[in-house]
């Protein structure tokens, strides 16, 4: 029996993303967002069948950091709950499986991080092969620079096109009250700026963000009850590529292509796509991998270039597509999340609203 239940995103809330939120700890950061998401559907935790979160101990600089955040949920009496050391998009995947298996009808999903306590590019270097790459301490921006250089050398992108992606994303973020970076300098000024990690300039890189997001899932009639227009999950899949940078063609993303195919991205018109592309050139790789054309609006929220809270930025892509479907701005959309360096792991979901 293949998955048969109709499951939808019915609520979404996110923090106002900022470079640093020193006045709040993680539980204080995420609780208002969890509460907003539940309030949107008029639910309490007692109405939720399964709760799943995504966060990272390395970002928090603390072992078992997710334990304290459970206080934000109100988990007493005890609840069915789980946690992934992944972006909240994967927490949503676990919740989706739980509902498909019939173990729950509703789910609360959240993801969050405070990147501000540590030095993020350096912390992320700890995600590499500990024997061969880790000892070299390559930071995440330098690695992304290798990929951008490979793209340019292959004639797949140039610095002007990268700047245009940054400009378009941050101008779009003017309409996103939660975004950290809203608005962009003119293109010529962007291109006149010095390199940060050649060929990447500052505008090619995501901001460093403290923030989080929460989503509510529901099946069938409950979804219709809780949302005026649920965003039904019509396809969902995730895949991973090799970690061995020397063995990968960095200019393509086979795992994103495969996940898109499994999720059925090409089976209909894509009105909107929210791609988790932290670096400008990665949007091009992903749009190609997912087969998105000019008729698709890319990252109307501004994407990860406008706010990039680790462990939540992927979940936010799902939420942003949901919001546009619920509001009737779009009928069918694609949400993407990534994990690891250089788009190593990719998640794709196809969301669809009922016919209007």
């Amino acid at each position, binding site marked *: 029996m293949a998955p048969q239940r109709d499951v939808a995103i019915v609520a979404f809330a996110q923090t106002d993303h900022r470079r640093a939120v020193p006045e709040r700890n993680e539980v204080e950061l995420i609780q208002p967002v969890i509460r907003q998401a539940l309030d949107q559907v008029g639910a309490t935790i007692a109405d939720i069948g399964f709760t799943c979160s995504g966060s990272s101990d390395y970002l928090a600089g603390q072992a078992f950091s997710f334990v304290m955040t459970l206080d934000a949920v109100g988990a007493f009496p005890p609840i069915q709950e789980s946690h992934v050391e992944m972006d909240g998009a994967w927490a949503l995947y676990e919740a989706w499986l739980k509902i498909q298996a019939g173990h729950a009808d509703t789910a609360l999903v959240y993801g969050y991080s405070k990147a501000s*306590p540590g030095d993020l590019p350096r912390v992320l270097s700890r995600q590499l092969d500990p024997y061969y790459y880790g*000892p070299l301490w390559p930071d995440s921006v330098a690695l992304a620079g290798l990929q951008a250089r490979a793209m340019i050398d292959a004639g797949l992108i140039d610095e002007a096109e990268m700047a245009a992606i940054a400009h378009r994303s941050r101008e779009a973020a003017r309409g996103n009250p939660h975004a950290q970076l809203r608005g962009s300098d003119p293109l010529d000024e962007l291109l006149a700026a010095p390199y940060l990690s050649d060929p990447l300039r500052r505008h090619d890189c995501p901001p460093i963000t403290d923030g989080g997001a929460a989503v509510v899932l529901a099946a069938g009639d409950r979804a219709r009850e809780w949302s005026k227009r649920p965003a039904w999950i019509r396809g969902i899949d995730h895949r991973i590529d090799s970690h061995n940078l020397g063995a990968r063609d960095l200019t393509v993303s086979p795992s994103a292509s495969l996940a898109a195919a499994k999720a059925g991205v090409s089976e209909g018109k894509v009105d909107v796509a929210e791609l988790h592309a932290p670096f400008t050139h990665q949007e091009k790789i992903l749009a190609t991998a997912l087969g998105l054309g000019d008729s698709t609006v890319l990252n109307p929220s501004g994407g990860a270039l406008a706010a990039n809270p680790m462990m939540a930025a992927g979940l936010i892509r799902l939420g942003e597509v949901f919001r546009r479907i619920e509001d009737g701005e779009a009928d069918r959309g694609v949400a993407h999340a990534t994990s690891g360096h250089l788009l190593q792991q990719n998640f794709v979901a196809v969301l669809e609203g009922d016919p209007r």
Partner: protein
Amino acid sequence: MPPADNDRQVTPFPAGLWEQPQPVVPAAVAEVAEPVQRIRVPASMLYRYTPGAAPSRFLRGLRDKRILGEKDPVNGDVYVPPRGMSPVVGLPTTEQVELPDRGTLAAFCIVHIGFGVNAPPTPFVSALVLIDGAAVSVYGTLLDIPIEEVRIGMRVQAVWAPDEELTTSFENIRYWKPLDEPDVAPELLKGHM
């Protein structure tokens, strides 16, 4: 040769504990070359933590030798140290409640192997103290009493750091000592340790 353990800045254990033999290397491998059994990758990362809103309020109180708990907005339970939320209802605690620096020993063990720079000489009593008016217990050490006289339900009093050493730290409460009051029935402590 692998580096000596003192080279890794490990917590010192009593001699003989946790010692294990060296790994066994298959003969075929050993013949080819000396196997690499360990590489060292020192990793040092600086984190600048901030405590958050509720813990900040609490720590500022501690600097003045005041114990400020925070109230569950629905059930009225007082949490100390506050972490900003009622874990029962998932709502922020905003109302501060000043608590006395007295309480009841809710649970304990006798520690013969201490950890950290602030651990007292062993053996000592690691205590869970239910401060009067609080809903959950705090961790501390119980001193100034023969270990064999320690019992669940006994009343205890905080011993503060000297005024000139007070900071915004939980360690302002140096330890807990016995208080000459009748014991509390242990059954009353269930659900609060």
